[in-house]
């Protein structure tokens, strides 16, 4: 019963979501912060022969095998990848994945009302993996759907 109470009060105030933002190429992207387990620096990679090209490989995260997905390659973002990159570790069902991105931004508090459904103008390679966008001052923050991202049928 107490759960319902908080949910209702949440609805009353102007709602804010916490997102974990990151950059790939020139774009800004985000996933809900609660879905992120941690962020780690580049790790030793074991390539998976014959896997799709956006699979960077496997990393050992404290004894757990994590599949690294290179979002730059998945989104077909051209241009040179920076030397430094980051792994955002997320969990989906029983597997751990690492989203390989260029740069991590801070945890952002974003007002829900700035949310919009997917605009048509977005690149279709990216569009199939997103939930929508947040229109922030001067920039567009693309909210990724882990569900869609991690269930890509190749």
């Amino acid at each position, binding site marked *: 019963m107490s759960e319902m109470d908080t949910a209702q009060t949440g609805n009353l105030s102007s709602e804010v979501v916490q997102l974990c933002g990151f950059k790939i190429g020139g774009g800004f992207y985000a996933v809900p912060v609660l879905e992120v387990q941690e962020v780690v620096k580049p790790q*030793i990679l*074991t*390539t*998976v*022969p*014959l*896997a799709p090209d956006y*699979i960077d*490989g*496997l*990393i*050992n995260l*404290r*004894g*757990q*095998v*994590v*599949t690294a*997905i290179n979002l730059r390659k998945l989104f077909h973002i051209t241009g040179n990848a920076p030397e430094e990159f980051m792994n955002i570790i997320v969990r*989906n*069902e*029983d*597997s*751990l*994945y690492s989203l390989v991105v260029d740069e991590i931004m801070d945890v952002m508090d974003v007002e829900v009302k700035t949310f919009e459904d997917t605009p048509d103008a977005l690149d279709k390679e990216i569009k199939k993996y997103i939930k929508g966008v947040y229109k922030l001052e001067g920039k567009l923050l693309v909210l990724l759907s882990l569900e869609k991202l*991690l*269930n*890509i049928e*190749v």
Partner: protein
Amino acid sequence: MNPIVKEFLVESNENLSSITEEMTKYEKNPNDKEILNSIYRTIHTMKGSASFLGFKKLEGLTHIVENILDKLRESEISLTGELVDLFLTSFDACSTIVKDIEENESEGDRSFDDLIKRLKNYIAEPLDLRESDTVIDDDIVSDINLFNEKIMEVKQQKPELVATPVQEKSEPVKVQEKPKSEPSPAQEVRSTPKPPVASESSSSRSSISDTIRVNVSLLDKILNVVGELVLNRNQILQFSKMNDEPELNRLSHQLNVITTELQTDIMTTRMQPVGSVINKFERVVRDLARGQKKNITLEIQGQETELDKTLLEVIKDPLTHLVRNAIDHGIESPEVRINNGKSETGHLVIKAYHEGGQVIIEIADDGNGIPKDKILAKAVQKGLISEEDAGKMTDQKVLNLIFHPGFSTAEQVTNISGRGVGMDVVKSNIEKIGGEVDIQSVEGRGTTFKLKIPLTLAIVPALVVESGNETFAIPQKNLVELVLLEDTDVNNIEELHDQEFYRLRGELIPIFRLNKSLELCNDNEPDGFLNIIVLKAEGTQYGLIVDSILDTQEIVVKPLSRKLKCQNVYAGATIMGDGKVALILDAFGYFNMVDRGADKDKAVEELHSRDNSSQGLFNADVQELLLFELGDERPYAIPLCLINRLEEFKDKDVEWSGKQSLIRYRGGAMPLVSLDKSVHIEGTSDKLGSNGVLPCIVSTIRGQSFGFVVKRILDIARSENVIEEDNVDREELLGTTYVNDRLVTLVDVHTIVDHMGLGKSRAKHSLKGRVLLVEDSPLYQRVEMDLLEEIGLKVTLAENGKKALDILKSGEQFDLIVTDVEMPEMDGWELSRSVRGLGGKFSTIPIIAVTTRVSPKDLNKGKEVGFTEHLEKLNKQEMADSISRVLSA
């Protein structure tokens, strides 16, 4: 809830499930009184506890059950199927009550009068019942006393609580004696109990305290924390490596060892034998079989196979469904079975085992199989497939239709299965945990379901290999043998239709190169030798070429994420000692990927026939020749079978002794022979070779190694062409032949060596005897004759079987016949048959066949016609060994 009640409930649940199992076991072995005693003890304990805790219904029910069990023990009544039914129903009723208590803390208002009435029918005289009643009541009194004692103990020391119910188990000991003590049962009962209680309780207490109950979620948490600890350990290790502080090093080393141990131990805590789930099927099978009037025996194999606890829970329902299906749809009624010429009793086998980093659970029945036409008809009727598609579907595809949601083939919907839900749920449940369901069915013969369950935490021994700079683990389960091919052996790899084959003891197996098939770099391919790993998976054998073989290790199998599941090539991943992730190769998945499909068998056959081609023709032997150039830049050849290795020596390493050049080779001095000079090629200098490098053919002739220096090594070729002896002009040449339409001159290294006067006292005369060599090819005549003479035998030569037979008939004495198979006039098969047919000493004279025909079929034929040994040509050592073997026999 009262902790004692809680403990009682947990105990009771466990006890009920164990006596259910025991009861089905007892039904099969009614003579095993120990099982019955055990059931009796358990029920007795439960009755006592229930009475103490005030659960009247449970007490009443268990009381009657106990009495009937007692009668059974005393053989006053005998065990019938109905009685077992009744027992099992009672146990179920007890479970229901226990569940009610669990939920509502009271027994609820269910009525079991009907059941109790049926049970009471088994207790014949009411007087008897009363009598035992009183006795039992005494038991209860003592039980209560015990409980009180226990409670006192519990107050002081909690863990002791566990011992309570077990202690009661000693009670039946005295009850058992009751009926024998006719005069005054009560007294007897009173006099005996104390000592056994004391002794048994102390022993069982110690055994109980060996195990404790732990919540799985706690284990999960510990596992995660240990994972974090491992990370921390790694960092400390790294830090200590950078610091030269001895004390820090020592401590971090200790930490390392302890952490590793802790990690492995925690992993194993979650493993449970599969038996804890599949043994329960005894009851399921029994009940269903009785319900449907079918005779079914259940066989359980591999129940000790361990699986992660969480996985076990998940597979329980799918397994139950499959077992029910097998009984409901699979196994026919006894009448139908007899009509179909089968035994009346159906057979159900549940088998668990490890394969390829997975636990496989097979459920096989010998029932009617799955009628494919019915499935197809149904699928069309339900609109799952079009009629057109139906005609084109393979059998396997048809079978897989049953996994389609909403598919049910049961002609008659029963209360067990056939309600249209099921197989799709089975499949999706198994797939959810990363497993697979395979189905095989032969109509009229039976159906086998194969569940492949990944073992998340399972530990399997594996071979660690390297290929293209990547490390891979291959489960030992698939490993047959490791073959190291050196130098010339590398040429034993044959190619056909882009598929390489290797002849492993006469059997052709396809081989694949791991770096090539996985599109890895090939920088690290070793030079001059090949590592072949012979693997087997689902009945196929194949060879896998890797760069290097590192180690065998116990690896922890981690499943791949769903994203990579489509990669059937890998069975999972593991983490190596250095912290790197390595992929685990799935031997079967890999084979399916690289296999070029159905033409393989044909290819094998083709290769075999290629070996034996031009059968029946003159000189049908295939010769493998090493082609090289000499100073005149023309191609020359030496039979490959005479060559040990190819080497390149440096000019400056050559030493001289008199006029003979020598080189240090494998711990000795080896004479170098310039073939240019030996075969008198004009215009060549005394100098051996050029550019400072001497390409050299190392060969053992008459027991000594020689290095034959040539200008250039060209190639290895197979030639089926006849060797013409007539058109050579000097002794050092054996003849000429055509290889790929080029004329090649064969060099006779034996003569060359003989002419040099270097060969040591013509080898070891280790054997004595006369041998009849039957061989049509001049080349092999030469090679084999040399070999035979080398080991001390006197050789008589015959060019074909007919001549050989004539020689034998003329009365000449031989100790041994060495024969080729493919020969004109009379072949080796016929020769052997004829010789054996002569009878007398000829029926026992050793016949060694030396041939290129060594396929399994040929080997069989060889046995039939009477070959003593059947050897592959080109292998000198084997031949020598074989000869000494048969002669000493």
